[in-house]
């Protein structure tokens, strides 16, 4: 594990992608895609070049070739092999180390700020329980639609009521396993007041293909109004319930 001090300084250097989940993902993804394509093209191109160059066209052959029944041995070129290995190792390890900084950023982000929602998967849909600042259930809950304020960090606590699901909003680059009896935490921040769709990403039975939820990103004020309204009706409900119970 890298010591915290180094981690902190690397995180602050500006080298490590930070921002919303969408930003960090796309930044890293495009770097990987660019480098990956380049490496792939070089390696496969080199293969094809040699495949063409050394194709058997008959003619004289100076080289001593393998014979049937010989003891298996290796050809030379060990140096070249290790040079290529070192090169590829440097590329891969530095890429991963670089993304590790972002991982620390992403993992360090859950918690104190923003809106907390418990996401509960069931066969075949999603419940959303809104939590108050103390992390307690606020009485507000919705089924099938997640409403969140724009430009605010939304912390998700994902769990399941039955089988293993996975909650993901692809356009907002957020995803987490929904496991019965466990809670996984993740977060996202939407920068536009738009509608999105959440999917289930783990096969969970017959209705898996259609196990979706709407995600409505609202302007701050509109969200606050909606939330206050929900709170009020939830309180009325529970008060009504108590009254109805004749206590």
């Amino acid at each position, binding site marked *: 594990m890298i010591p915290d001090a180094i981690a902190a300084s690397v995180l602050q250097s500006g080298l490590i992608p930070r921002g919303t989940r969408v930003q960090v993902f796309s930044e890293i993804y495009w770097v990987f895609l660019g480098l990956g394509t380049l490496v792939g093209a070089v390696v496969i191109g080199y293969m094809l070049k040699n495949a063409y160059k050394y194709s058997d066209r008959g003619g004289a052959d100076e080289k001593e070739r393998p014979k049937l029944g010989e003891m298996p041995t290796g050809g030379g070129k060990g140096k070249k092999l290790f040079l290529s290995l070192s090169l590829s190792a440097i590329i*891969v390890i530095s890429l991963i180390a670089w993304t590790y900084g972002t991982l620390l950023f992403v993992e360090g982000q859950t918690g104190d700020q923003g809106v907390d929602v418990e996401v509960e998967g069931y066969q075949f849909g999603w419940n959303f329980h809104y939590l108050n600042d103390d992390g307690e259930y606020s009485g507000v809950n919705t089924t099938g639609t997640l409403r969140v304020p724009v430009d605010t960090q939304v912390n998700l606590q994902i769990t399941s009521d039955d089988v293993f699901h996975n909650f993901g909003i692809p356009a907002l680059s957020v995803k987490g396993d929904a496991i019965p009896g466990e809670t996984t935490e993740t977060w996202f921040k939407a920068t536009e007041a738009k509608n999105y769709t959440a999917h289930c990403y783990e096969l969970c039975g017959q209705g898996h293909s259609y196990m979706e939820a709407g995600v409505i990103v609202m302007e701050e004020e509109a969200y606050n109004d909606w939330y206050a309204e929900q709170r009020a009706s939830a309180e009325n409900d529970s008060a009504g319930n108590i009254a109805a119970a004749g206590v």
Partner: protein
Amino acid sequence: MTDETQPRTDGGTATALPGDSHDDGSHLPPRWSIKRWLITTNHKDVGILYIVTAMFFLVFGGMLALLIRAQMWAPRAPGEGILSAMAYNQAVSLHGLIMVFWFLSPIATGFGNYIVPLQIGAEDLAFPRLNALSYWLYLASGLMVFASFFQGSTFAGGWTLYAPLNIPAFMPSIGATTTVFAIVTFCASVTVGGVNFITTIHRMRAPGLTMRSLPLFTWSWLLTVWMMLLAFAALLAACMILLSDRLLGTTYFAMTTDGGSVLWTHLFWFFGHPEVYIVFFPALGAMAEIFQTFSGNRIVGRKWFIVSMVLVALQSFIVWMHHMFLTSINLEVKTLFMATTIGISLPFDLMVFALIYTLIKGRIRWDTPMLYAFGALVLFIVGGITGVFLGAVVLDYEFRGTYWVVAHFHYVMVSGATALIGALFYWFPKITGKTYNEFLGKVSFAVFFTGFNLLYFPMFLAWGTPRRVFAYRPEYLVWHRIASVGAVILGISFLLIIYNLTKSLISGDDAAANPWPYSTTAEWAVSSPPPLENFPGTPSYASGALEFLGSDDDGSGAAAATDGGHATEHEEVHVDHASVWPFVTGVFSFVTVIGLSGLQVGSYPAGLEGLFYQATSVVGVVGLISAISAMGYENFTAHEGGFGETWPFGGVENTKMGMWVFLASDVVLFGAFIGASIFLRVAYGWTNWHPVPHNPIPGLVNTYLLLSSSFSVILALVAAKKHSRKGIVASLVITFVLGLGFLVNKGIEWLELFHEGVWLDSGVRASTYFLTTGLHMGHVIAGLLITAYLIWRAWNGAYSEGSGETLEYFGLYWHFVDIVWLFLFPLFYIV
């Protein structure tokens, strides 16, 4: 075929070993007779059976793939398309399971069977009947998969069988149980095969063929079987626990069990990641052979290639949690597994570069095998690079459960299949003695390569599609359409391949012994196909190159094997090639499983259906025990090891080594059961958990009983050394009585718990206690059955004349059962 006796020594003793043989065509019917294929134990026959059967499952799995692609032709509303939602889930699940378990591994096993003994200079495997048994268990398991489709519904929860979707509460169909049973049976097949190959490759190599000079295909296969032995034991444990949840009602994976779902992912992926290499290694080894032969170059950096494979094989067991980055595992563990995952990619870089550099200064001939091998490498590079994306945890967070993963692993797995098809063309002349149609072969490659990339590359472009759904965003339509077209083209290429090979088998030209210039390995030094006993003389590399000793001076056997100049006696020893019992065992395994599949949470279905399942269970179990006993009683002589190189198991006789290797896999089996208990206890809260039995004293008494029975087995061995028949019988009887005492004591304990209402389904503490000690009890019962058999044999004087090896090997097993108890006792009774 030669008829002379071949001299053998086992590197130290001067006694002749039964390694010599005759071509006993009299015992083995000719190839055109169906009977031959049912009773053969010859490694080449078994190899052919494996390859042909695997091709059938390729077609089966491929048809399911086409169904999937048909459903994906357009984003479907509920009820639209050719498949219902449940049918689609079944197709997705069984496509994965069949391709991984019933096609990829078995076709590689076919080559391992046919080619490896030839490459190492062995006339057959160490345990030919167990080899046949592996095959019949494989076929039986495959037929169970077929049957499962007709028992309501087959398994429909994905090839990863995630919990708790996999338990009856969510998947009640009998067919799902049969599918899990099929995996268990396949695990048994693989374990038996692993023991066999490990023993064979380590102990039955020709003189001079040291480990470092083994051909690369043999190396890759050796590492594959080692990984199989240990990884499949974990899968076996996972599926046995799952079966217990399904059949008996334990609650390991129940929704309400803390950590139950995550436990499944640990057990499954502990197997699942090594499985990737289990599937890919034989392909890699075949690629190395083909690259060398068709470039006319020896592989670059051979030593480092081998070192890389060994590193990968070891590391493959410590990367599994990269499949679980989005579960609730902590950041430290994620970091660790990210590091090991990147670490495991580096040896692969080296191997890829080694293969590429082998081309340089070559005289590359583009015959069909080389086209496939070369194409496989290109595809593997794409698969490898896109896999690095998944190694970056932040990217994996988004790719998890999407078509990126689907595209990536198909590029890896199917590139392996590509290389294995290359291997099929490469070894086809050797196996059949016929030449395939080269032109058609090249055409098939062009179609294959086009279809492959049309099918899988668009999946990268449509990567936002969730896995295993048939409703996707309309913007991906074009990519999914192209993929579906590609699937059809890929399917056509397989038809071309199958047509080409079938036609050539019937009417192809005869193949030369060595149709490939620059090939080096020993299988090309014998005729195509090779004779029953493989070699014209005793193969030896002692002089630095392959020679067949004694092939010229017929019958005299004067040219003794050069392993240090020991004089060898000659004895006409007959070696067997046929036994019907592996086949019969396979049949009754199938019957047993069909019967037991009807059991659900402790009871059979009502009415006639239940009666059918119960009757089938009884017939199956009785038949199975009889068949195994008959196989044990049958006289069967196999080739002994130790005639050449044996590192690092010199001086450990084949059967003893097989027993030890089996026990190593049993360590992992019990380890996974114990690990599961410990994991669930940690999830439950370690100190909140108290032992299920109220009192440790009965457990202590059982410890005494088992320790004493171990001691009496030792006494039996001492008596055998003294050639005392009475001593042997008395000691074994004591062992039997003590073991029986253990069972009775345990039975009383269980009955008391049952009376108190503590049953297997009374929560996770009871489940782990009953199942783990139950597995141990199963081992005790098996041990007692063997003890009873040994007593009967000893009474008839079987072990008092010889050196009592059988008793020693049984002792190894029995002491192992004792050792396991030494851990179970404190874990389940004291702490």
